[in-house]
């Protein structure tokens, strides 16, 4: 048996995280960051590995459950995202345990973040539905404690709201998971492998019910309107680091699952549901953007921008063209980095000011130019400025959608206009103008420190690199897009010029 790289990749952060139960204090911090860097190295090895990595061990034979891992293009992109974001978050939250109101120490935060990283990596690598479900639910436990342990005064309620929404979505998915197991068993050989389920010939009624069960869970996770309300409440109360992990990594499981499980296992029902989902995606784009413009709290603002961005991703996924699908997967990666940059940069400012209210800021760029600059760069990435990688992915989504649904694509472009509004308005209100007295007392001489700048370097660098030279990354994700298109049985619409015969 060859070296089980994928298992090791997931096991290292898990063991490291559990070890932090005993190793505490300054040592614990170093161990935590060390483990996350080791995971980064392993993740990069897996990312650049050309051989196909897969593992398959029977877990519960009688019901056909496997411990099966695999890594395709989309999985690689998500693994890259995860292993890069976690060390960045740990470095950014270096003193989280010393802040007033923290329930536990910094090493506990690091431990939970590492355990979360392990589960998230398993989600992105699982090729067995039951294993996927298992780790999908398991991510909730560390995330719950991350939200509930550190952050604002009403974080306990926020944590519970997060958990109830996710659990409810997860249990709806359990209905689908059981159904998948029953269908394969009735076909003769019980199995939860995604490939086996995809090979089933489900009756369209059964398939549609199962599709809906999975889709609801992912829509809660992503989050899409109307099941998004947990996200702003949670992000408002959690620390910026926890929010980054939540929105940057965990929410990607939603869109990831739509491609991997919904499209991968239920091609016919996916096509059947497309009209409704596309409308929901458009609603998410606009609702998220409008709510972001109306937000008075920076953290809520960022989370609403994410709702809008997830709308774009879902639009690209269910437009079902190679270009829009590749765009969506690339979008998932870019959104992870740009939202992380935004959450963390705003987090620095909020920590200094002691409030996330937009009204509490004003003229920060005069006294803390570096912090304001970071906010601006991250914000520009969020609004998909050309040159940033998010521009490319957003463009691909819209161009791909145009091929099949020109009107929807046309409407969605308005979303980008709104994006420019919410970012620039927020910047104008908080950073420009004369520095108020309060801002001066809080920010003078307390600009962003070297450690905090260091966190932002890789994130912004990646956004720029992928923005100017996206080709290698696109090749990686395009493969998944093509296989998904083949599974669903869709072909790209022929270019209009040929169609019209002119």
């Amino acid at each position, binding site marked *: 048996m060859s070296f089980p790289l994928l298992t090791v990749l997931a096991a290292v952060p898990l063991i490291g995280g559990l070890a932090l139960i005993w190793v505490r204090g300054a040592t614990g911090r170093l161990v935590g960051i060390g483990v996350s860097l080791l995971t980064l190295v392993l993740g990069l090895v897996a990312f650049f590995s050309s051989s196909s990595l897969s593992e398959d061990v*029977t*877990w*519960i*034979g*009688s*019901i056909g*459950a496997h411990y099966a891992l695999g890594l395709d293009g989309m999985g690689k992109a998500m693994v890259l995202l995860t292993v890069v974001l976690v060390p960045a978050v740990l470095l950014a939250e270096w003193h989280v345990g010393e802040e007033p109101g923290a*329930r536990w120490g910094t090493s506990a935060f690091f431990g939970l973040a590492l355990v979360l990283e392990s589960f998230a990596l398993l989600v992105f690598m699982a090729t067995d539905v*039951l294993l996927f*479900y*298992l*780790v999908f*639910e*398991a991510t*909730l*436990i560390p995330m719950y*404690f991350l939200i*509930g342990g550190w952050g604002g005064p009403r974080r*306990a309620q926020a*944590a*519970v709201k997060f*958990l*109830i929404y996710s*659990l*409810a979505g997860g*249990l*709806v998915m*359990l*209905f689908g*998971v*059981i*159904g998948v*197991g*029953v269908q394969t*068993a*009735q076909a*003769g050989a*019980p199995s939860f492998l995604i490939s086996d389920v995809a090979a089933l010939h489900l009756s369209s009624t059964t398939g549609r*019910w199962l599709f809906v069960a999975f889709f609801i869970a992912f829509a809660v996770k992503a989050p899409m309107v109307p099941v998004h309300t947990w996200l702003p409440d949670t992000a408002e109360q959690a620390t910026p680091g926890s929010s980054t992990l939540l929105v940057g990594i965990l929410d990607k499981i939603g869109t990831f699952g739509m491609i991997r499980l919904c499209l991968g296992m239920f091609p016919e029902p996916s096509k059947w549901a497309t009209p409704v989902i596309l409308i929901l995606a458009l609603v998410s784009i606009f609702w998220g953007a409008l709510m972001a413009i109306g937000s008075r709290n920076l953290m809520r603002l960022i989370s609403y921008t994410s709702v809008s961005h997830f709308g774009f991703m879902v639009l690209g996924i269910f437009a079902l063209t190679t270009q829009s699908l590749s765009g969506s997967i690339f979008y998932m990666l870019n959104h992870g980095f740009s939202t992380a940059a935004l959450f963390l940069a705003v987090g620095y400012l909020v920590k200094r000011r002691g409030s996330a209210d937009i009204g509490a800021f004003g003229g920060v760029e005069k006294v803390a130019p570096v912090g304001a600059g970071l906010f601006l760069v991250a914000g520009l990435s969020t609004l998909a400025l050309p040159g940033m990688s998010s521009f490319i992915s957003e463009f691909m989504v819209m161009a791909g959608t145009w091929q099949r649904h020109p009107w929807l694509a046309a409407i969605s472009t308005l979303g980008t206009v709104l994006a420019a509004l919410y970012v620039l308005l927020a910047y104008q209100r908080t950073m420009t103008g004369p520095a108020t007295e309060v801002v001066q007392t809080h920010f003078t001489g307390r600009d962003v420190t070297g450690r905090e700048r260091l966190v932002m370097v890789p994130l912004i660098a990646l956004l720029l690199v992928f923005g100017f030279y996206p080709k290698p990354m696109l090749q990686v994700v395009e493969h998944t897009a093509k296989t998904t298109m083949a599974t669903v049985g869709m072909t790209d619409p022929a270019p209009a010029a040929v169609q019209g015969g002119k």
Partner: protein
Amino acid sequence: MTSSLLQSLEVTAPKLEYSLLAPLIIVLTGACIGVLLEAFVPRHRRRDVQTIIAGLSMLAALLSVAFTWAKGTRQVAALGSVVIDGPTLAAWSGLLVFGGMALVLFAERRVGAGQSSFTPMAAAMPGTPLERRASLARTEHTEIYPLLLLAVFGMMLFAGSGDLLTMFVALEIFSLPLYLLSGLARRRRLLSQEAALKYFLLGALSSALFLYGAALLYGYSGSFYFSDIDKAISVGQQSTGMLVAGLGLVTIGLLFKIGAVPFHSWTPDVYTGAPTPVTGFMAVCTKLAAVVALLRVLYAGLGALRWDWQPLIAVIAVLTMLVGAIVAISQSDIKRMLAYSSIAHAGFLLTAVAGASTSGNGLGAAQVGSTGAILFYMAAYGFANIGAFGLVMLVRTAGGEATTLSSWRGLGRKHPLFAATMTLFLLSFAGIPLTGGFVGKLLVFGAAWRGGYAWLVAVAVLASIIAAFFYLRLVVLMYFHEADDEEVVVARPGIQTILVLALAAVATLVLGLYSGPFVKVLTEASGFLR
């Protein structure tokens, strides 16, 4: 003339398969010896002697079960009255393991500063000088250990009985000790006695219904044996009125013991009133014995009537799940909450009963059916439940156990290990992955769906969401609230209890992470012998 008279007087001794029946005999003998010892052993040594006798007899019986299981003998024993088949052996193992764990909780005295959870003198009126004197003299009712053994014996016989009459006798054998044990709580004795009386009256009623149902089934088929009833139904020459009435009454008698709605009203009061170790024992072992008996009656005896009882059980399952889960939300006492939670779990079990996916109904040989799923579910539920009630015993104020939910506030900060263990059990109850409870739910719901009850699975998932809410509320109370009652302490139990709690926690994790072998073994053991 004389010769024929002599012939009719001649009684041939029944041939008994002693090696197969050894587990039953060992436990019964242990109970009898225990009763006798009450008369001979001096008072201060009785507790040690009794616990040793009880522990040893359960251990020996467990070894004997394991031996038979390993040997692969599956046959009808004791002239058809006891059926030694896979479900019987699995149920016996479960009863003996959980009974043994309950025994340790029965004997736990360290948490109460040298006093057990049982009243020092049951005959004394509550609050009288006599009671106070008994308490000061540290007297104990060591009869509880033989009573526990008798109950375990009755449950084993109940789960393995091959005819309705044996089943009825077994029902009485395990019920009577339980009525007594429920009334023996040390604190809040009036509540405990009320619970015992309530349990007795309702239990007697359900026994009567069961017996009447058995008589009707006898009237229909001319036999008490499940195999004969099964044959008589398939021949089907009688009118079915008596048959269906018998089916209904017998099923009601069994559903009462499982605690299914609408026969659940005793559960909350008895669970709250009874001493906590007894509650843990009842919640697990009664349910296990009764559900196996229900499966045997429905699958082995009345399998041909599947189309009649499946919808009935499905409706009861829906009621049970929803009532259990919804009412549990509004509870403020942890024992009452766990009582309603056990009702909800009975509902989850019944979904698989209703599904009835067995090898007779087109299930593949190595696939998990209803029986295998239910056995696994009971194993996972049993460990978590005994563990949870064991932990409930530890949370105390000066006046005894502190069972109001508010006294659990903030325990996570003061006692991290305690809270983590309780969280594990609660997660298992809620069916969160990586615990045994999750795999159990998966199997049980899968079996229901295989039997064509997809809609029942949808309802069950909904009920699970509701149930998750109140389990998690307790987790939130422990971790994210500040203690407002400084008097509440988590007492340190004796080493045996710690071991039992550790076993429960480890088993909950192992059943969740490494379920493959267990599912396989229980699937192989899931065929009823007719």
